[in-house]
């Protein structure tokens, strides 16, 4: 709609049309034609940010691929020491949280306040569960001296599929360095995501979202799903390299 169509000229030549309309639609910023355009612009901006995140994680995945190509057997032995049950549980936890996120978006679209608040709270609970399980996993790695550094130890660990051969500890250490950096960076994203969802929950509690305006939930949801997708790749790459007996 062109701005000229909304203007109402009063006898004293004061333009009040735009002003009144802004009060009726307080969430619509004046440089957008309508809510749909405003939503699309926000979502596009988020996707551009996610594209930079793809490149950000892409560098790490690239480093991983090169070293896995060079030290395949050592990576297999090191991967086998990680608890696959914890990793699989965490994958399921994240998938559940992605479901609660889409439910939150749907609840905001259809003005279901209880479902919206419940879904946002459930998402945070699942996110905290993920980080807790991650913490248990890290604790195991610390106890086993699998953390890269002065106390690192990975002696006499057999290479899967090659009886009598043992992993080179220096090469295994590279695997664990990548493991901690990649899962740590992912966990940092989860913590940021928890902050975003806490903010969304408070805003939803105050009733800021309506079927016409729920862009922050959609945008926060895009971020959460992206973090889920990163994990979908991290899980098989780090936990499931060479699991067959």
């Amino acid at each position, binding site marked *: 709609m062109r701005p000229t169509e909304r203007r109402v000229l009063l006898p004293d030549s004061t333009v009040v049309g735009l002003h009144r309309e802004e009060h009726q639609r307080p969430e619509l910023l004046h440089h957008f034609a309508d809510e749909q355009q405003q939503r699309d612009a926000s979502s596009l901006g988020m996707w551009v940010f996610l*594209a930079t995140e793809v490149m950000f994680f892409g560098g790490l995945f690239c480093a991983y691929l090169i070293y896995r190509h060079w030290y395949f057997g050592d990576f297999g032995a090191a991967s086998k020491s990680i608890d696959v049950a914890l990793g699989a549980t965490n*994958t399921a936890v994240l998938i559940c949280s992605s479901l609660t996120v889409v439910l939150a978006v749907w609840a905001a679209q259809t003005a279901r306040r209880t479902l919206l608040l419940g879904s946002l709270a459930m998402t945070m609970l699942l996110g905290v569960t993920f980080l807790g399980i991650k913490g248990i996993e890290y604790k195991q790695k610390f106890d086993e001296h699998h953390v890269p550094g002065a106390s690192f130890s990975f002696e006499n660990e057999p290479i899967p599929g090659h009886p009598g051969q043992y992993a080179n500890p220096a090469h295994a250490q590279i695997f664990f360095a990548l493991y901690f950096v990649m899962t740590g960076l992912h966990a940092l994203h989860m913590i940021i995501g928890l902050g975003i969802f806490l903010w969304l929950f408070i805003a939803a509690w105050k009733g800021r979202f309506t079927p016409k305006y729920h862009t922050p939930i959609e945008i926060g949801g895009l971020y959460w799903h992206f973090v889920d997708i990163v994990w979908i*790749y991290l899980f098989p790459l780090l936990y499931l390299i060479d699991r067959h007996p």
Partner: protein
Amino acid sequence: MSDHSTSSPLKTYFAVFFALLVGTGLTVFAATLDLGPFNAPVALTIATIKATLVALFFMHVWHASEKLTKLVVIAALFFLLLLLGLTMADYATRSWS
């Protein structure tokens, strides 16, 4: 996002959710099989199917009213594949040195 995607998306959401759980189970099971050189491709194929489901239906790329969104997604994937593909084309063919 757009109006036609808000009519009744719950069925889609739950179908995708169960597909993701099945995919997770499948990838754990596939890792216990000895598929020779095919273990990694199978795991990555399952992961890519799961990621595509999340992007298309949970992140609403399928119903995106803005074509630019799809362009950004494709551009991101293109540059990621460029990064990984060209790097591995170098490293994976260096066995003579």
